[in-house]
C-alpha cells in the first residue's frame, strides 16, 4: 500500500474514534468519574462544579492523558468500525501502561501504590497469550483462562478505584483498562459487559470505604497468575 494512503486511511478512521465514539465519549466519562469520585486528599475547600471541572482539566497530565485517550480511541468495542490496520493485545496494553509511566513524572499525591493494581491488570490482560500463537485479539469465545483473567481485571479495577479521584488521566486509564478487558474478550460483551462497569465502580467504592483495596489487588494478582498457569496447561492454538 502507498504509505501516504495507509497513513491517511488510519487518520480518517481514527478521527471519529478519538472525538466521538469511543474515545470522545470515554474521556468525558472519565472527567465525570474523576469529578464525582471521592478523593483522599486534603482538598476540602468548597468549590462549584464548574470550578472543580476546570481545575481537573487545568491540572491534567497531558502525556499520560493523551496515551489513555489514544488507547480508548482504538478499542475494538462493539458498534465501532474496524481500523484499517489491526491492533494487537500488546499495543493496547502497552499504550495504557505508558500512560501510567507518564503519570509517574508528576510528583504528587501518593501515586506510589498505584503501580501495583495497574501491574496486576497488565499481567491479567497479557497472560492469556501464553496459550496462543500470536498477540492479535482473538475472536473465540472466552474460556477458563479468559474468565480468570477477566475476573483479575475487574478485581484490579476495584483495587485501582482509589486513584480515580486523583486526576483525569487516572480516571481515563481506569476506563481504558476496563475497555481493554472488554475488547480482549475477558469482560463479557453486550449487556453483561456494560453491567460490569457499574459493578466495578460500586465494588471499588465499597472496597475504598472499607479499606479493602489492597485485598482486591492481591486477589487480582492471584487470579492473573491463575489465568497464566491455566493457559500454560492448554495446548497452544
Amino acid at each position, binding site marked *: *500500500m*502507498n*504509505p501516504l*494512503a*495507509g*497513513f491517511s486511511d*488510519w487518520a480518517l478512521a*481514527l478521527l471519529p474514534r*478519538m472525538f466521538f465514539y469511543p474515545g470522545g465519549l470515554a474521556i468525558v466519562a472519565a472527567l465525570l468519574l474523576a469529578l464525582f469520585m471521592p478523593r483522599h486528599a486534603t482538598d476540602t475547600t468548597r468549590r462549584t462544579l464548574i*470550578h472543580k*471541572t*476546570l*481545575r481537573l*482539566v*487545568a*491540572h*491534567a497530565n*497531558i*502525556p499520560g*492523558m*493523551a*496515551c489513555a*485517550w*489514544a488507547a480508548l*480511541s*482504538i478499542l475494538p468495542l462493539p458498534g465501532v468500525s474496524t*481500523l484499517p*490496520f*489491526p*491492533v*494487537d493485545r*500488546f*499495543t493496547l*496494553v*502497552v499504550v495504557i*501502561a*505508558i500512560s*501510567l*509511566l507518564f503519570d*509517574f*513524572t*508528576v510528583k*504528587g499525591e501518593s501515586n*506510589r501504590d498505584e*503501580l501495583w493494581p495497574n*501491574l496486576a491488570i*497488565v499481567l491479567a490482560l*497479557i497472560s492469556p*497469550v*501464553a*496459550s*496462543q*500463537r*500470536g*498477540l*492479535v485479539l482473538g475472536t473465540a469465545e472466552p474460556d477458563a483462562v479468559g474468565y480468570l483473567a477477566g475476573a483479575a481485571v475487574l478485581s484490579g479495577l476495584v483495587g485501582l478505584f482509589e486513584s480515580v479521584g486523583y486526576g483525569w488521566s487516572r480516571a481515563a486509564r481506569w476506563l481504558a483498562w476496563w475497555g481493554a478487558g472488554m475488547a480482549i474478550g475477558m469482560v463479557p460483551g453486550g449487556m453483561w459487559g456494560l453491567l460490569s462497569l457499574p459493578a466495578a465502580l460500586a465494588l471499588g467504592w465499597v472496597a475504598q470505604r472499607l479499606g479493602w483495596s489492597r485485598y482486591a489487588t492481591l486477589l487480582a494478582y492471584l487470579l492473573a497468575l491463575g489465568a*497464566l498457569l491455566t*493457559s*500454560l496447561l492448554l495446548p*497452544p492454538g
Partner: protein
Amino acid sequence: MTGFNRTNPPTAGRHNATWTSAFLLLLALLQLALVPVLNGRDVELAPLFRVDSLGLLFGTAWTLTLATISIPLVRQSEVRMSGLFLGLIGVDLLVCAYAHNMVVLAVGWGMAGVGIWASQNVPGTCSKTNWAIFNAVGPAVIIAILAVATGFPIFAPPAGGVAEPWPAVAVMGGALVGAFTVSGGFRDGRERDKNEGANAPLTALYALIAPYILAKMLVTAPWHPVGAWLLVLFGMLTLLIGGYQAYVAYVSQEQQGHRPFSYALVGMALVGFGIAANSPLGAAGATWVMLVGLPWIVARWWRWAEIATLVAVVPGLWMLSQAALDTGYGVVAALLLPAYVLVAALTFFRRYETSLGWRWPVTLAVVLSLLAAALPQVVVEAMLKPAVRTMAGGVGALTTVGIEWGVGMLVRTAQGTVPAALPATGMGLAVFLAAVVLYWLKQLAGRATRQTGGDTQAE
C-alpha cells in the same frame, strides 16, 4: 554527592574532554561513512577483523554513545588522563565490534574492561583490589577459554552447507560472559552507583555490550536446542533479577542506579538471542533492545528524557513477545511485558535526579528514541534487517516482518495470517492529536481557573 553538576564544572578536563569527544565522534562518523561504501557486503580483514553490518551497527552506536558521554565524564573525572582512557575504551569496543574471531573478541573485551577499571581507579577508593581487576578481565578470560574449547572459531557464516550448532556449554559460556559483564563487579562503581557517580554512564555502557558475544556467535552457527532453552531461562532470570533489584531499592526508598534497568535490558536481549535460532524476530528484538538502551544511558538523568527512552524499548519488546510465541515460549511472552513495566516503573519512580550538564546529548537521545518508538519501521528496515542478515550462520532472514510505512509494522506468517500488529506510527499520531487538544483545553481551563481565583498547583 559525586553526581553530574551543571554549575561550575571543573575546567581542567574541559580541553581533554573536547578532544576525546571529537576523536570518538570521528570514529563513529568514519564507520557511518563505510555503510554506503560497503552496501551490505562483508569485508574480511583476517586474521583480526571482519567488517559487517552487525559490527557497523554496534561499533557506530557504541562510539557515538561514548562520544556523547565522554565530555561530562572527563570534566567530572578525578582520574588523570581519563580522556585517554575513554579514547582507548572506544577503540577497544571497536575491536569487539569487528572481531574476526573469538581470540580478538577476548582481547577487545578484556582491554575495554581494564580501561573501565582504570578510569574508575580513583586514589583512595577500593577499586585497587584483586577482585576488581579480576572482574575487569573475567569476561575476557571466559571468552578465551571458550575460544580454546571450541577450536578458535571465527565469526563468519559457513561457506557452504549448515553450520554445526554451538554446544550447550558454549552457549552458557556466552551467557556467563554476559552475566559477568552486566554484573560488572566493579566494587567502586557499585558503591558509586548508589550516588550515581560520575562513571555510572560508562559502567552502564559496558553492561549493555554484554549480550554482544551471543550476536557474534550467531554469525557463525545456531545454538544447540538445550543451549537455546538454557539461554532463554537465563535471560528471564536476569530480567527478574533486575525487577527484584528495582523492588528492593523501591522498598528501601533508595534511589535507583542503572543496574536494575541494565539487567532488564540485558535479560531481554538474552531471551531474544536464545530464541533467535528458531525465530529471526527474536534476534531483531534483542538487537533493538541493545540499541535503544544506549540513548537511555545518556537520557536517564532527566525525567522526560528518560521516559522517551523507556517508550523506545516497546517495539523491541513487541518483537520479543511475538518471537517467544512463535517458538512456543508462551510463559516468556506473557511475562516479558509485566516484568518490563515493573522494572521501568520502579526505576523511574525512584530515579536519581540530577543534570547531565550538557543539553544537546540529552536532546539527541530523546529525538532518536522518539523517532525509534514512532517509526520503528525505519529502524527495522535500515538497521535490524542487515544486522540479522549478518547472523546468517545461526539466524534465518527476517522475512516475517511486514512494513506499512504510514502506520507501523506487522508480523505475517507464511500462510498469510497476521499474528501481531504494532501500529506505532498510527498510535504516535493518536497520542500527538490527543496531546494537542489537551494542551489547548488545559490552557483554556487554566486561564478560566485563574480568573475565578483558583490555585495553580499541579495535579
